[in-house]
């Protein structure tokens, strides 16, 4: 066990020595990987900050049914009654808004008053405002009801407010898929960079590898320092990527804050939680070690 530990300690020492022996080259590799990694980390920050906004956004449980302008009040009342009867469990209230009442409300608005006064008659239809009960998938359920009611006679238009929340959800889904593709691209960049770094290192250390084999080194002994080299480069790069993402978020948050304040709200981009970042760093290290092993096996055949 002690012997095994000593060999691993030696491999780690050799890996650190090789990293430090070419500081500029090592730094360039770390920078390339760190910059590439920081992009999905920032993407994850944006996604993570936007998701609660979408989730907590109150989906208005209200649906407005606009009747045909030709439909009379009686028909509107009957439609409201039908909704109360057929969907008693799903709706909490059904309110009929008469066209006159709607026009009066509009006229009370200073910007609209003059324009509406110029109209010869009342162009507005009667409408029914339905408040839905809470539902696990309120937006989807509202959609279902809306499309059902849209088919009813004398109903001109059914409007509800969940559309834009769904749009936001769709955008987030798009970002999520984009992020997954980006992560796959980043994995390829990490693999390729480490592969090439280790290939060059293996070529530089050709003589040392030959001597080690000459004096009885096993292939594990020869490859181990390269595995550590890959894993260390991956780990340092991942940590540097987190640092870079954090640096980049500062000016972004300042700008976002100014933007959000114009909407009277507050929005902050935050890095993923430390556990996720640590997991990312570990995964990157393992990937880098695998790439290093692949490279050293290919490039130092005995």
């Amino acid at each position, binding site marked *: 066990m002690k012997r095994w530990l*000593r060999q691993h300690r030696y491999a780690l020492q050799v890996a650190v020595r090789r990293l430090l022996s070419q500081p500029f080259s090592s730094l360039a590799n770390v920078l390339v990987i760190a910059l590439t990694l920081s992009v999905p980390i920032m993407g994850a920050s944006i996604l993570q900050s936007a998701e609660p906004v979408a989730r907590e956004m109150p989906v208005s449980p209200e649906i407005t049914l606009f009747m045909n302008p030709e439909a009379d009040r009686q028909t509107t009342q009957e439609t409201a009654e039908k909704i109360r009867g057929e969907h008693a469990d799903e709706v909490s209230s059904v309110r009929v808004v008469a066209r006159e009442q709607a026009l009066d409300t509009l006229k009370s608005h200073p910007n609209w008053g003059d324009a509406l006064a110029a109209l010869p008659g009342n162009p507005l239809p009667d409408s029914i405002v339905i408040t839905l009960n809470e539902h696990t998938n309120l937006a989807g359920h509202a959609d279902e009801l809306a499309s059902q009611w849209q088919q009813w006679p004398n109903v001109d238009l059914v409007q509800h407010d969940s559309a834009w929340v769904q749009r936001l959800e769709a955008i987030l889904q798009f970002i999520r898929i984009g992020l997954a593709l980006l992560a796959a691209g980043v994995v390829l960049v990490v693999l390729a960079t480490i592969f090439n770094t280790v290939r060059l290192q293996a070529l530089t250390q050709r003589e040392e590898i*030959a001597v*080690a*084999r000459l004096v*009885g080194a096993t*292939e594990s002994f020869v490859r181990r320092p390269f595995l550590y080299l890959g894993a260390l480069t991956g780990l340092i790069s991942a940590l540097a990527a987190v640092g870079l993402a954090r640096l980049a978020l500062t000016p972004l948050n300042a700008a976002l804050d100014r933007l959000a304040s114009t909407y009277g709200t507050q929005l902050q981009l935050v890095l993923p939680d430390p556990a996720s970042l640590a997991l990312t760093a570990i995964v990157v290290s393992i990937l880098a070690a695998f790439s290093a092993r692949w490279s050293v096996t290919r490039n130092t055949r005995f």
Partner: protein
Amino acid sequence: MGAIMSPMAGCCETRGHDIIRARLVFKAAVLNTPPPLARPHMAVLLWALILSAIMIEFQHVFKSYGRARNILSDINFRIGAGEFVFVSGPSGAGKSTLLKLVGGLEPPSRGAISVNGHRIDEMPTRARPYLRRAVGVTLHDTHLLYDRSAIENVLLPLKVIGLEQSVAWTRARAALDKVGLAGKDDFNPVEMSGGEQQRLAIARAIVNRPAILIADEPTANLDHETARRIMEVFRDFNRVGVTLLIASHDKSLMAHYAARTLHIDNGRFTDVQGVAV
């Protein structure tokens, strides 16, 4: 098929040297532990058995690279424990290839090779490094690492086996001392002369206490005096029981040490001085 050689054949040491060698080979064979034998005649019998042990054996060995002609063709010989053997022949005769086969650095194309009791040709590739630890090798090019000091070069084989640091340093210093490089621990190999570099390579080859030491042209490009000193180092190791196999084409050197000589020409054994093959 070569005849079984007496390990003493071709050697010119005194009876005293034989006894020293016998004792050391015995010690090496039982991992440096004193003989647990109460009766002296049993010990003598065991020593005799160890001395007659075959350290290296080639049976119908062929070596070629790809479809090219055979570098070595139908090579047969045996070398006993503690023997001092030269491999001679012109450049390109196959001397280096022969040594590489003995060192387990390359497998044979055909035939059977036994080294230190292990069949190299049947050995899986991953097991060969363990055999190489029992065979000290110095090649024509010393293969020293110029990015580290002399002692760090000697320490490498000990790092490979994961020896404790303090023990490793003591053994590396002792190895440097044995080859006459005491006090040159921190020298970089580039600061050393050709002879010193060769001795450093020998120190690295013997630091793991191998049973066999093989050297490819260790005295090439060295002046006569330096070459003689290098050979003295080898002979000292042979005196303590290490089996020596040295490739050389320096006839005066071979004549001076009057050791058994295997002669290779064009991949075949053409002559073995003093012994019929």
